[in-house]
C-alpha cells in the first residue's frame, strides 16, 4: 500500500507558479480558491527560497480530527480526501491545518464559508471515478488514470515531487548526496557548506533524477 506524498525541493523551486496554474486548470477550481500556492521566504534577500505548498496529505491529519461532521477519509494510497456532500463549511479544518490547505469559496450570507475545497492529490473524490459529479466537485482524478498530480508533473525544474513517499524520499536523498559532491568544489549552492569530498561529480549540480 502506497503512501502518497508531496515534497518541494527548495533548492530547485524558481517561483514560476506553474504548479499553481496547472492545478487551477486541471481541476477547474472555483474562483478565489487556490489549492496550491508558492511562498517565497526572504524575497529579494540573500538566502531567498521558494516553496510550493498545498495539502500535504498528513498521516495524522488535523483537519480530519477536528471536523465536526467527520467528512474526511484517507484512501488506500494515503491521500486525504473529503466528502463535499457532508461538509458544512464551518472552517475548523482551516484553523487546524498547518499548511493553510483548506479553501472556502465565500458564497452564503455575510460572506460565510461555502463547502471546503482542497488539494485532492488529483485523486477525485468519493463520487464514482471519472463521473461528471466527481469532475465538478473535486476536479480531475489522475491517480485513477495511473498518473501523478499535474502540479508535480508540470514542474519545470522538478522541484515539486509527488508520488509514493519511499520513491520521493529516495530521489531527494540522491539529490542531496550529489549536491554535497558539487558544492565542495564550486561552493555556489550553500553558504559554509561542505558535506564531503567530490566523488568525481565536480560541476554537476545534481544527478539525472
Amino acid at each position, binding site marked *: 500500500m502506497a503512501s502518497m506524498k508531496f515534497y518541494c525541493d*527548495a533548492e530547485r523551486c524558481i517561483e514560476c507558479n506553474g504548479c499553481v496554474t496547472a492545478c487551477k486548470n486541471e481541476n477547474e477550481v472555483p474562483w478565489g480558491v487556490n489549492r496550491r500556492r508558492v511562498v517565497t521566504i526572504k524575497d529579494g534577500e540573500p538566502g531567498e527560497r521558494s516553496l510550493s505548498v498545498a495539502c500535504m496529505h498528513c498521516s495524522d491529519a488535523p483537519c480530519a480530527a477536528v471536523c465536526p461532521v467527520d467528512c474526511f477519509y484517507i484512501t488506500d494510497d494515503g491521500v486525504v480526501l473529503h466528502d463535499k456532500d457532508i461538509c458544512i463549511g464551518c472552517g475548523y479544518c482551516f484553523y487546524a491545518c498547518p499548511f493553510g490547505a483548506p479553501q472556502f469559496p465565500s458564497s452564503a450570507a455575510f460572506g460565510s464559508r461555502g463547502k471546503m475545497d482542497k488539494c485532492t492529490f488529483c485523486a477525485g473524490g468519493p463520487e464514482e471515478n471519472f463521473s461528471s459529479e466527481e469532475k465538478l466537485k473535486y476536479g480531475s482524478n489522475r491517480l485513477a488514470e495511473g498518473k501523478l498530480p499535474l502540479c508535480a508533473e508540470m514542474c519545470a525544474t522538478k522541484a515539486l515531487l509527488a508520488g509514493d513517499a519511499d520513491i520521493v524520499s529516495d530521489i531527494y536523498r540522491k539529490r542531496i548526496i550529489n549536491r554535497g559532491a558539487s558544492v565542495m568544489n564550486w561552493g555556489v549552492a550553500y553558504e559554509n557548506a561542505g558535506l564531503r569530498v567530490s566523488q568525481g561529480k565536480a560541476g554537476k549540480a545534481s544527478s539525472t533524477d
Partner: protein
Amino acid sequence: MNIARKRQMRNVGILTLLLVLIAPLIPYAISAVSGSSVQGNEYQTQVKHPGGDLWREVRQRDTDVIGRTQVKGVDTGILINKSGEDWRQYRMEMLAPYGAYLMGAILGLIVLFYLVRGTLRIPGGFSGKKILRFTLNERMVHWFTVVIFWLLGVTGLILLYGRMVLIPLLGLEGFSITASASKEVHNLIGPLFLVAMLALIITFIKDNFYASGDLKWLFKAGGMLGGHVSAGRFNAGEKVWYWLASFLGLALCVTGLILDFAILGQSREIMALSHVIHTIAAIVMIAVSFGHIYLGTAGMEGSLSSMSTGYVDENWAKAHHDRWYEEMQATTTKDSKQEAVAGGVAATGKASPISDN
C-alpha cells in the same frame, strides 16, 4: 619506623602505577577541554545542515516568518501555521471532555440537591395576594434572550458533540443536514445575541449593583444551609448570575462576531483564539444557566410565575426578598394613591403592583 617507611614506599608505588595507567588518556583529556575535534579528516568536518535556517523559518520556530506569494488571501504567506495544532489539542482534548464533565457535574449536583431538598416550598404557602415582580418589558427582554441563548446553545453543542453523539444515531448524511442547519442558525441568529445581551444588561442593571448584606447572603449560601437571609429585589446569587452572564455574554458576542464574519481578513490565530474564549464562555454560561433554570422552575415553588405572569405571591416575596417586599409595600401605597387619581391601571405595561388575580 621501618614499617612506616615500607608503607610509604608502597603508597608511592601505587601512585606511580596509577599515573602510568592514566597517561595514555591525557591527549583525549586535552582535546576534550579545548573543545577541538581531531583534525585532518575531511569526512568528519562539522557542517551546518544547509537547509537548517530555511526550515527553521518555515516551521516558524523562532519568529513569525511571513513570505511573499502571488495567491491573495488570509495568511497565504505563512507556510506553516503553528497555532493550528494547539487549537486542535484544545478542542479535542480539553474543550470536549472537560466541557462535558462541567455540564454533567452541575446537572448531577442539581439532581442531587433536588433529591435531598426537593422543591423549596413557600413558607406559609400561597397567600393569594400577588405582587408585580417583573414588568412586561423586563419579561420580554428575558424571554427574548432565553430563546436566542438556547437556539445558539443547542446548535453550538450539536456542532461540538454531534460527531460523538449524533452520528451514531443519524448517520453521516443525517447528521450533516443537522449540523449544516445548526451552523446556519448559529451564524445567522448569533448577531442578535448582542442585541439581546445589551437589552438584558440595560434592563436589569439598576438593581444588580452590590448592596450591603450581599456578602452575608453569599456566606450563608442564600439560606441553603438553613436560616433566613434577607435580600433586596435581587439577592447576591442573582447578582452574581447577572454579572457573570453579562461579561460572558459580551465575550461571546465579541468573539462570535469575529468568528461569524470570516471575510474581514482576520488571521487563523485570531479566530482560533476567539474560538477558545467563545467556547469556554459558552460552556460556563450553559452550565451556570442550569442552576438558574432549576431555581426558576422545579427548584423553588412560586418563582416561575414572576417571569410568566410577572407576579409573585406575597409570601414568596417575604421569604426570599424581604427588603424588596418592604420597599414595594412602601411604594405601593404611594402608587395606589396616584392610580386612584389617574383612574386605574395604566396601559403602558406598568400594571398596578398589587393585584388580586
